[in-house]
């Protein structure tokens, strides 16, 4: 009985250790991303970039393949939606995915076919109240986080700097979730 209790305590300690390790890696990753953002944008603080500016992902620690390039941005959709506007260059794949603080992807993303407008431009909305539009990304599970615009195998990767998207906060469009 006492032996079993002892084993349970140790198992709980191991689970706690795993959670602590996850938290530690999350903080380490966040520190790395923040440092990189400040270095490549010249911003003084991370808050200057939230909902305002995306930057080219040039950090070799997490941009390991030059054929897959893109922009990183920080979002905060607790009070407003965030519109991301830009140009779609010729490439094999364009997608926007968003991540929680543990670097795990949220179960919502958008690709070029979802967001393409008639004139080669795109607009994507990050929102906590999606209206059902195909160019919306639902961030209700994590209203604050980090996102990536990913371009795979661009025809002219040297033009990436000219593609910096605009980040604009906009009023929410979706309906309030119904209360049961």
């Amino acid at each position, binding site marked *: 009985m006492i032996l079993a209790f002892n084993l349970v305590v140790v198992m709980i300690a191991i689970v706690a250790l795993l959670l602590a390790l996850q938290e530690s890696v999350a903080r380490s990753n966040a520190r*790395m991303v923040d440092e990189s953002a400040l270095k490549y944008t010249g911003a003084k603080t991370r808050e200057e970039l939230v909902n305002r500016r995306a930057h080219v992902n040039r950090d070799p620690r997490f941009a390991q393949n*030059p054929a897959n390039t893109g922009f990183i941005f920080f979002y905060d959709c607790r009070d407003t939606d965030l519109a991301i506007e830009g140009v779609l260059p010729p490439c094999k794949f364009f997608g926007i995915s968003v991540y929680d603080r543990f670097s795990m992807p949220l*179960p919502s993303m958008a690709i070029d076919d979802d967001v393409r407008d008639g004139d080669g431009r795109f607009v994507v909305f990050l929102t906590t109240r999606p209206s059902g539009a195909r160019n919306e990304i639902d961030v209700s599970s994590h209203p604050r986080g980090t996102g990536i615009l990913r371009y795979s195998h661009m025809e002219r990767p040297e033009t990436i700097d000219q593609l910096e998207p605009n980040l604009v906060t906009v009023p929410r469009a979706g309906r309030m979730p119904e209360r049961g």
Partner: protein
Amino acid sequence: MTAARWILVDLAAVVLALVILGAVYQRRGQIFTLLRFRRIRGNDPAPPLTPRPRWVSTQPAPNPDRIPRLLAQRMGPFPMTPYGGDWNFFCYVHIAPGRPVKIRSKLVSCRHANLTLYFPEHLRGELNTAPPSLDVEQLRCEADGTYEIIISHEASSAGNRFDPEGVRHGLLALRHYVFQDGVDIHYPEIWWGDELVVPARVIPGVSSILPRRGPLRRRS
């Protein structure tokens, strides 16, 4: 005596728990292989880091080949897209001189597919050159959609060949972008010379979240 005995029991329990965790992490994510891969030099003449590699993925549940979350985080900060976004998986390969690595599989119906061979130096951020890669458009296939790719240090007449640039330890990454809903995903079999080290596998009827339906929202 009693205190010493309980300390021993605790230690034994901790060791047991760590062994169990290690076994689970190795089976689910090949953690020891990946940890050694991140440290080794690509051209190190060391023997294979594991005799039994397998295809694994950083994409989250319900991906049947997902690696443990902590390991996916550690490979981050931005490992992959969500489940059903695209389908990506990777596998360690050992490329010995005189023993070509063969990859055999069948095309998956998707908008774009790509096979890339990463070296340990890419994962450490020490190399910023493009790793060897093959796009689906460059792939020479049989009429039934099957293909074979050879990775060898020596020249070869194979239709699809990777030059590993002298590197012996690599990480193959196979990506399928925007696959059709309900499609079967084929995991390639991998041969090291005449030895089949990774058998082929099929994940049937995979669900895709892309492309999406619905109107296009515009800025008011």
